[in-house]
């Protein structure tokens, strides 16, 4: 800070000199200069009258917009290099205070269950927005079933297919409460165990001693649909005993199971009042269908992982962004042309308003709905001259659909934290 202050005082004295020299300048102009020169050397230079403040309008437009022309989009690149506009005397380098002033987030909507979210991120480079998106999909951890111990499976679905299906079921549990298993033995801090034991009644059994009603129904053999809600959480860990232990010691010592839990998970305060399981709409996921007499008995172990290892650990169904569409009418469009153009747009971007004398004028009512299908600029050069379709380069409409482990805003926060920790790692390795 002290250094900055010194600099400031220097620039101020310099300015006084220049002021004294150029007495012809109007007073208001020099006052303006004084106000803007606060804050250091670059600001002083920027405040000089012959230094351009802004890019020429057409270049500024190319810098901030993608143009969706009839043949191809143009000006699609984002200009990152600090000296990109050096030839016109403009500084394009990054300044944190500038970023802080320009950056905005606007939440557009949450779905009723709070698991989908749409928000606008304004004033950020695609490199960073894309990093957030990539991290959301591939690097924010969740819990998913990784190991399946099948004791019995007489259903039609093969063991490995069944195991794969189980892996893909989203589990509604906060992954931050767990550790990565790595090579450790499964314990209460890194593993969730589920039990699945379902059996479909046999045809014959039902036939034997059932009432008349049942006998009438017997033409339809019994069927069971196994759902995600049939998976029961085992807070005390596995109930399957290891085979070697089983044969050696019958009842003398406590046999070992496939997990080594030191305590029951539901005795831990973090799980005592929210049971691990499958949330309301997600508990209805089909796992298998059982015919008469078929049975599935298994245990599944869920562990923490990330989406880049396997998509089952991805915490989002999708996370995507699009740039804000901008529809600009280059000339007034009235009457018949207005009607035609309104009809042309398949998503209803345009509206018609009445002006005086029964005339109608076209307005752009819903530019956000525009998909840039370019239907409105097809049909001859005259249409291209009427409408311009653009995208705003630094305005991202971000959508996150969570699979239920964490709400989307928390997921996004976690993603940003992961990017921070990546940076931190590089810094610490370089120091």
């Amino acid at each position, binding site marked *: 800070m002290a250094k900055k202050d010194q600099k400031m005082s220097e620039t101020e004295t310099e300015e006084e000199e220049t002021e004294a020299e150029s007495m012809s300048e109007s007073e208001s102009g020099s006052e303006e200069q004084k106000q803007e020169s606060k804050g250091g050397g670059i600001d002083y230079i920027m405040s000089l009258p012959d230094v351009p403040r802004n890019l020429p309008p057409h270049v500024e437009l190319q810098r901030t917009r993608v143009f969706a022309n009839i043949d191809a989009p143009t000006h699609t690149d984002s200009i990152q290099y600090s000296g990109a506009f050096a030839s016109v005397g403009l500084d394009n380098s990054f300044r944190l205070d500038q970023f802080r002033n320009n950056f905005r987030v606007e939440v557009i909507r949450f779905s009723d269950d709070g698991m989908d979210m749409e928000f606008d991120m304004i004033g950020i480079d695609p490199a*960073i927005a894309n990093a957030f998106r990539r991290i959301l999909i591939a690097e924010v951890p969740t819990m998913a079933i990784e190991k399946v111990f099948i004791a019995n499976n007489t259903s039609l679905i093969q063991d490995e297919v069944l195991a794969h299906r189980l892996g893909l079921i989203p589990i509604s549990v906060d992954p931050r409460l767990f550790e990565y298993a790595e090579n450790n033995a499964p314990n209460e801090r890194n593993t969730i165990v589920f039990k699945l034991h379902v059996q479909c009644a046999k045809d014959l059994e039902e036939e034997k001693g059932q009432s008349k009603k049942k006998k009438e129904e017997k033409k339809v053999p019994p069927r069971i649909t196994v759902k995600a809600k049939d998976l029961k959480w085992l807070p005390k860990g596995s109930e399957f005993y290891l085979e070697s232990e089983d044969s050696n010691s019958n009842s003398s010592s406590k046999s070992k199971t496939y997990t080594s839990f030191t305590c029951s998970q539901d005795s831990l305060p973090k799980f005592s009042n929210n049971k691990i399981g499958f949330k309301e709409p997600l508990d209805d996921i089909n796992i298998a269908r059982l015919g008469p007499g078929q049975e599935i008995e298994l245990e599944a172990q869920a562990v923490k992982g990330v989406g880049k290892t396997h998509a089952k650990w991805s915490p989002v169904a999708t996370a995507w962004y699009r740039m804000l569409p901008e529809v600009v009418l280059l000339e007034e469009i009235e009457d018949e042309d207005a009607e035609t153009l309104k009809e042309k747009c398949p998503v209803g971007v345009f509206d018609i308003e009445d002006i005086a004398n029964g005339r109608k004028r076209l307005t752009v009512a819903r530019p956000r709905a525009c998909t840039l299908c370019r239907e409105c600029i097809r049909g001859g050069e005259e249409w291209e001259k009427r409408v311009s379709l653009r995208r705003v380069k630094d305005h991202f409409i971000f959508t996150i659909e969570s699979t239920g482990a964490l709400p989307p805003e928390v997921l996004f926060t976690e993603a940003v934290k992961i990017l921070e920790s990546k940076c931190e790692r590089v810094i610490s390795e370089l120091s």
Partner: protein
Amino acid sequence: MSDIYLTNRLTYSLSLPPRTLSSTISQWCCRELLTKMEHGSYADNSNATFSLTDEDHTLANAVRFSLNQDPRVSFSGYSIPHPSDNRVNIRVQTTGAPAREVLKDACQDLMMMCQHVRSTLDVAVADFKLRNPPKKDEDTDMK
């Protein structure tokens, strides 16, 4: 008694939890610099290539953006030498400042941006929820 099936490849083969990351920095040897992620020369430290393991476009592209916005940088870019290597090379050439410091500053800038993004989002979400109270409280609040 029971068959064991893995639902996919073993976890620890690919996903590396944060704790083991520090040991994964490149072990290449280049000139005098051994077991470092920086590949350059002692004579001129303004140009260097940094080899980051277990990183990809996610970090490299963001850092490249941040580097390019630094006026001390004359060139910066990144490449992934082979898609099946978990490695990314970041090239930094500066107008004189040590490349290592410039890269550190770039990461610092990125971190500051992230922190600002995080706090801005928190405010925006809190504001939105205040204006539109959720119908079902228990669904949106995860404890």
